[in-house]
């Protein structure tokens, strides 16, 4: 076998050496764009987790779910309170999240490397707490909301083995509760759950659940137990305290239920990346088909095979009874909207695999907010968003926010157009233009954005 392996690796080496090396100039150009990409990534990753929280409807398989009667009464944008002012040197790539009547902004200073966080009260436009520094980093790796806390990840660029640090910030005070250094090279991950932060991949496969308040381990499952050596924890529904699906290196699946945390082997194996949506486990492998397993019973079965040359990427819930599978080809992306149970193709976004098509989705009721606009469950384009970014507000509407510059750039003083979009019919209500920068965030009534002086809040509904 050794000689065979030598031959096989020799073949792999030869094939590797025939892979065209991209242009150095391309890498340099991409370096200039990379930070903003990172910011977008983290924002959307958080959106994905949030989308998963509401995906319980998918289990019902109902196709007749309609929008709730609640409507947003849009009004022209009206500034609320004085906003937050301060000295924020080098502040770029701001992003925000809203929860519990506050908005939270995180950014890294390009000039000092400081990773910062600030909170603003939405109903008053006043600071929730002063801006705080979390440390100095080479990059900003993302953030997420969890019960009572904001998790903010800084990334070191000095080659240290524990390359990231998670800061767990108390939402009510802005003070850091605790921090965790971790190494994503160990095959592990951080999964925010309502019961605590699930940390996988330490010490060869150990699992720990850390208390949001103290950071102390509520329980630890040593890797020596063997049956559960999690390399992947499907996260889409983790915040909803549903069972987690653990995947051992050999693909064996177990169900882990919070809070008793007793793993129950499912007797099934799946290879590839797992996503759990509505009681089903979807597995995608690079270049291969997507398979699905019903957690209620049965064996893994074929679900979706990408078209010739395309690869299945992210799998997301995208409305009642539907699952969206992102496909990527050499020329672009498409988002396939599939029946969540059977994999039957309903419709798709980006039929020509164009660049920028088939981006991530979020949902408002049974409406799908995709890269090009707002769609009905049957694929009718209710609203074409153009260059605007759609942000769900409440159960039946969205904001369309259009920035003139590149995402992540801008000093917070550019004209940003804001419109309200009724999810029932796609009706658009222009709300006004404000001077702001990239990184706005909204709840059901207020819009908060970075601006030249700091952060400001506007009311958009009554």
């Amino acid at each position: 076998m050794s000689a065979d392996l030598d031959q096989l690796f020799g073949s792999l080496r030869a094939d590797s050496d025939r892979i065209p090396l991209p242009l150095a100039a391309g890498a340099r150009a991409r370096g200039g764009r990379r930070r903003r990409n990172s910011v977008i990534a983290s924002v959307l990753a958080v959106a994905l987790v949030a989308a998963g929280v509401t995906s319980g409807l998918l289990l019902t398989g109902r196709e007749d779910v309609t929008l709730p009667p609640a409507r947003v009464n849009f009004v022209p944008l009206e500034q609320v309170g004085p906003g937050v002012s301060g000295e924020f040197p080098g502040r770029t790539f701001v992003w925000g999240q809203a929860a519990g009547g506050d908005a939270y902004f995180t950014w890294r200073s390009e000039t000092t490397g400081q990773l910062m966080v600030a909170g603003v009260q939405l109903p008053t436009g006043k600071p929730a707490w002063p801006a705080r520094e979390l440390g100095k980093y080479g990059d900003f790796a993302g953030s997420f909301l969890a019960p009572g806390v904001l998790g903010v990840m800084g990334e070191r660029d000095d080659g240290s083995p524990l390359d990231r640090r998670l800061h767990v910030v108390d939402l009510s005070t802005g003070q850091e509760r605790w921090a965790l250094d971790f190494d994503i090279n160990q095959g592990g991950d951080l999964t925010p759950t309502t019961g605590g932060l699930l940390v996988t991949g330490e010490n060869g496969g150990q699992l720990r659940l850390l208390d949001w308040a103290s950071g102390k381990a509520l329980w630890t499952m040593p890797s020596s137990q063997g049956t559960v050596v999690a390399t992947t924890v499907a996260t889409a529904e983790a915040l909803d305290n549903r069972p987690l699906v653990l995947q051992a290196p050999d693909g064996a699946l177990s169900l882990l239920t919070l809070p008793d945390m007793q793993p129950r082997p499912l007797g099934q194996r799946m290879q590839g990346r797992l996503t759990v949506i509505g009681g089903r486990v979807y597995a995608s492998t690079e270049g291969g088909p997507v398979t699905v397993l019903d957690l209620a019973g049965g064996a893994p079965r074929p679900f979706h095979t990408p078209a010739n040359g395309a690869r299945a990427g992210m799998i997301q819930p995208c409305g009642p009874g539907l699952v969206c599978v992102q496909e990527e080809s050499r020329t672009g992306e498409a988002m396939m909207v599939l029946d969540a149970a059977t994999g039957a193709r309903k419709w798709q976004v980006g039929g020509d695999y164009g660049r920028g098509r088939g981006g991530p989705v979020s949902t408002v009721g049974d409406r799908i907010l995709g890269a090009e606009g707002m769609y009905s469950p049957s694929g009718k384009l209710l609203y074409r968003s153009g260059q605007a970014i759609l942000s769900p507000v409440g159960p039946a509407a969205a904001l369309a926010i259009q920035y003139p510059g590149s995402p992540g750039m801008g000093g917070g003083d550019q004209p940003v157009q804001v419109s309200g979009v009724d999810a029932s019919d796609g009706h658009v209500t222009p709300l006004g233009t404000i001077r702001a920068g990239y990184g706005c965030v909204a709840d059901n009534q207020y819009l908060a954005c970075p601006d030249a002086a700091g952060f400001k809040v506007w009311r958009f509904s009554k």
Partner: protein
Amino acid sequence: MPDADGFDEFYRDTGPRLIRYAYGLTGDPAEAQDLVQEAYARAWQRWRKLSGYADAEGWLRLVVTRLSTDRWRWLKVRRTAAASARPPAPAEPPSEDTVLLVGALRTLPVQHRRALTLHYLLDRSIADIAIEMGATAGTVKSWLARGRAGLAEVLTEPAAEVAEVLGGSDVR
């Protein structure tokens, strides 16, 4: 900026090895190209500092390793980057042996895959791998042994099962 202060030369010298490393980790030529370009993009941002490193190539491998296992990145970064970047030139189709091997490599834990890639594709010694992966030489030997065993197990399976591992690829 002619040759970008040595960056382009560094890129040309180290790029092919990094592609090889990324291909071993991911088993996908397009993914390898993307990871490598992303790693060099990060290197370019820090080039003034990185160019002074004794082992800047090792730093790049760390970045590639990190990116290949980073769920947060997997979720979105490549999508947004791809949306605004021209795709690199397509790679030639791999040989049948390579298809079989990368399919088998994908079934291994990342540490085993990484150790095998460093050993077989970059000719790194056990001691070098141990330093790079922050492990003892004994642990590296164990990873290599278990990795080889894992490959042998998959590669000796009937063709149909290998095809399944490969995600339905046509194995002739």
